[in-house]
């Protein structure tokens, strides 16, 4: 069925509960008696849900969507499905860690294979067993050092460029009120440092998970620690500014309990504006 723009707009008003009483009956009757029109309504519902998830509805449509359209449990389930469906089809761009180039074996390399290993000339012992033990110890030290460096990098999470600090309180806007934290990141910022106000300070480590407007995970770190900021307990999460384009975000904080389980503590909602 091909509906023109005016009919589509009428359907949208119908679904948002804004159609005048006089026009309702005709649509109701057609919905029940015409199978193609019924399917058109279902498609219009999906499209409305997608517009809501993609933040393409204006304030008034959004309000009607939440307060009228979502009143039925079936549509609420449809919204949850669509949210997952969209993030499944459009996963966030992953952070790419450079991989070493695959090894290409040349003729020269092949000749070298028969030569004794280079490190043997540095080793004080000629016994292969002892030599390999020494090499293993060296490798272990290098791995441990790298792990410590990586862990420290993760903890710091600092990108090149200036650091911009934003303080967040748990919660955010809700139906019953609440103030939305709006953040403008100055141009050229490398890292945004979020100071998360925490009430529960009895955890050794904290996990932060940043979720975008579509529900997709954008960033996470399991090694966040508690700090003191002017007498207030805060957990600091440093997130590359390039991962934070304008939009709505939720930062979920959980605390680690033995043995390595995380308990949900708080969610911090904010909006990045350009």
């Amino acid at each position, binding site marked *: 069925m091909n509906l023109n723009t005016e009919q589509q707009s009428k359907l949208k008003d119908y*679904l948002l509960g804004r159609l005048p009483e006089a026009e309702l009956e005709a649509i109701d009757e057609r919905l029940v008696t015409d199978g193609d029109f019924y399917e058109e309504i279902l498609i219009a519902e999906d499209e409305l849900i997608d517009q809501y998830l993609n933040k393409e509805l204006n304030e008034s449509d959004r309000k009607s969507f939440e307060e009228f359209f979502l*009143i*039925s449990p079936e549509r609420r*389930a449809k919204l949850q*499905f669509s949210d997952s469906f*969209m993030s*499944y089809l*459009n996963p966030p761009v992953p952070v790419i860690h450079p991989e070493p180039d695959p090894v290409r074996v040349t003729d020269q390399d092949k000749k070298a294979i028969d030569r004794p290993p280079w490190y043997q000339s540095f080793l004080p012992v000629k016994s292969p067993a002892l030599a390999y033990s020494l090499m293993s110890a060296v490798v272990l030290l290098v791995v441990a050092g790298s792990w410590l460096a990586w862990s420290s990098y993760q903890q710091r999470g600092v990108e090149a460029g200036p650091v911009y600090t934003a303080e967040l309180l748990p919660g955010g806007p809700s139906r019953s009120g609440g103030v939305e934290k709006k953040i403008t990141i100055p141009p050229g910022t490398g890292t945004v440092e979020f100071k998360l106000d925490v009430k529960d300070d009895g955890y050794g480590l904290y996990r932060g998970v940043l979720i975008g407007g*579509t529900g997709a995970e954008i960033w996470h770190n399991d090694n966040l620690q508690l700090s003191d900021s002017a007498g207030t307990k805060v957990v600091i999460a440093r997130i590359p500014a390039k991962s934070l384009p304008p939009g709505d975000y939720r930062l979920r904080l959980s605390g680690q309990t033995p043995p390595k389980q995380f308990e949900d503590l708080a969610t911090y909602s904010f909006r990045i504006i350009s």
Partner: protein
Amino acid sequence: MKDNDLERLLAWLNKDDREQAARSYENIRRRLIRMFMSRGCYEAEDVADKTFDRITSKLDQLQNYEGTREPYCYSVGALVLKEWFRHIDKRPKQLPPPPPDSDWKEREQRHACLDECMKKRTSEDQTVILEYYQQEKRAKIDSRQRLAEKYGISLNALRIKAFRIRATLQECVFECMKRNGYEIG
């Protein structure tokens, strides 16, 4: 509804073909539910059941009814809906619940179900879904146009095709979630 009443109702919907009658019943019920929902009724399924109860109670008088069944069901449904509105006006006003926000485990399970359900689709369906629901606006318009040309169909036919695949996926995911212990709706 009692078994006997249901049989009488099905016979009224189509006296020659019981299977066809059962399909008609399901179709009318689904459409009535949608109508009630779209009018802001949060007990749409109950109101649909009441509509069929009302129709069943009048079956004796309907034996000579010649017209198609859907318009009659609609008019009874419209009446039952009006009664429902009058009834809820007397109840204390309920605030609508906030938009749903599922927990991590549930989201992960839904993604696993989507994965499972997607793999059951043909590669053509997978291509349609992946290209049709791209998020980036310009790319979305271009890829929909390309896709419609590829299948030799209009953009609207493509829209319906994508919707039907998505609806099947949704049904499959809901089934999968229920199998894994989650309530739907």
